[in-house]
């Protein structure tokens, strides 16, 4: 248990120091990553990319019936 705690503490410091001592380009790309992920998941996914079948049908049975209808008609 003590060893696990020590390992977790070392891991935390590894990432903490890494981020704290990050170069300028590193900081810039992290900002880009965060903005990109925000746009993708908080804007695009929620407002523009809802799952078509989940949005229109409540159960898998209804979804399969809809797709079947699309396939044969």
């Amino acid at each position: 248990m003590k060893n696990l705690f020590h390992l977790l503490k070392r891991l935390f410091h590894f990432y903490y120091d890494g981020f704290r001592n990050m170069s300028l380009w590193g900081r810039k790309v992290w900002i880009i990553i965060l903005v990109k992920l925000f746009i993708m998941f908080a804007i695009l996914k929620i407002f523009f990319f809802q799952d078509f079948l989940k949005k229109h049908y409540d159960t898998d049975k209804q979804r399969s019936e809809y797709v079947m209808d699309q396939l044969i008609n």
Partner: protein
Amino acid sequence: MIENVDLTLVDWSRAQFALTAIYHWLFVPLTLGLSFIIAIMETIYVRTGREEWKKITRFWMTLFGINFAIGVATGIILEFEFGTNWSNYSWFVGDIFGAPLAIEGILAFFLESTFVAVMFFGWNKVGKKFHLTSTWLVAIGANLSALWILVANSWMQNPVGMVFNPETARNEMVNFWAILFNQVAVDKFLHTISSGFLLASMFVLGISSWFLLKKREELMAKRSILVAGIFGLISSLTVAYTGDGSARTVSKVQPVKFASMEALYEGKTNAGLITFGVLKDTGRKIGEKSVKEFAFKIEIPGLLSVLTSGDRDAYVPGITDHISGNAKMGILPVSEKIQKGTFAKEVLTDFTRARMVNDTQQVHNIKSVFNDKDFQKNYFKYFGYASIERPEDIIPSVTISFYSFHLMVVLGFLFILIFALAIHLLFKGTISENRWFLRIALLSIPLPYIASELGWILTEVGRQPWIIQDTMTVSKGVSQLNSGSVIVTFILFATLFTILLISEISIMTKQIKIGPKH
């Protein structure tokens, strides 16, 4: 039927997916190749202990980091589009797509959160060997991550290892290994990753040439050219070899795409390989599609027959063979495939009716038909043909297929020449003086990107009208959305990705100008 489908919706949905995939693919191949080049450089550092190699490794690692960070997760947008714009297709493919993509997602997450962090944060904090192992694991992991995406794409080109379940309207995986070792997947994986290695090698060669032109960091530039030249030459030869294997597989599983790649309308024995050609309209038509011919061509007689079958006298079927059929070659006419597909669709319609009236016996009987190998092989295999209205609808754009294929091949041979020259000049000790070569190498950086995108354009345009070869047409796979909303997201993506690309080029250029610091 096709005439009932909003073609604007289909076209915009295709354009949106193409745009996203093309932009995504601007980031991926550099990650695939540069990770290996860095691993090779770091290996030299660990083995020799020479600090200059550490400095070289860290410089290219910086550029790798910028590309990796900006490109990361851009592929997730493709998954969004599957659920929103291609919902029928996504449902129909069932777990065939889900399993490889889930493996890819898990792999990417663990890779990115652990070993990439060690690569960047671990210098002087972990042991040399552990750091080197992490770098190799990032390279191997990134390429394995690509494997699963390519396995999923290959299944669309050559659907194997599944059975359609009429109760759920989904395909179910019955043989994971058949999907993983699908010949198209094996060829595509080897061809794609080796093209990524080539692209990254040209990137390193071009930037190193810039340093030599500027008379800066000459030792680093020459060392980098040594690694990139050798790795690039091996990769470009591998690309040519795997490309040949890939084309041979296409000739078997997607013969219409293959005939379109060569603009081969009439099948023949002793068929020649077109090394260069210019197409023009003949004024003739197959149905409503115009037939092309060569205004000019350079052809190697018999080579196409040899490449496809290993025999100069082998018959290579043309587009008309696939439209009208060729009994001697065992090729069914499209009209017969339409009949078979229509029969499969009628069986599916009967199943739906039986289920609606709760005729359990009939449901049971028809379900067993779907598990019957003869029905799968001779009827359901052609299910997509039920949506084909005119035989000529199965012909993709011959112009796009032909030019994308041939330009890619020409560029491929040019890359071999450039890497061979780089090694020759480097060993001769005159690379710095040959400024013409350095300029060519620098200007060649975009060419592998173009070749790589052309490869994907050929893959995807060449398989039209299918979203899943012979089984589902693109128009059947699309979601019934308002085409206006697809246009809006197309513009959003074009803007977002262009900003990301400009950011990448801008940050990368700045870092290159700064040069190695450590």
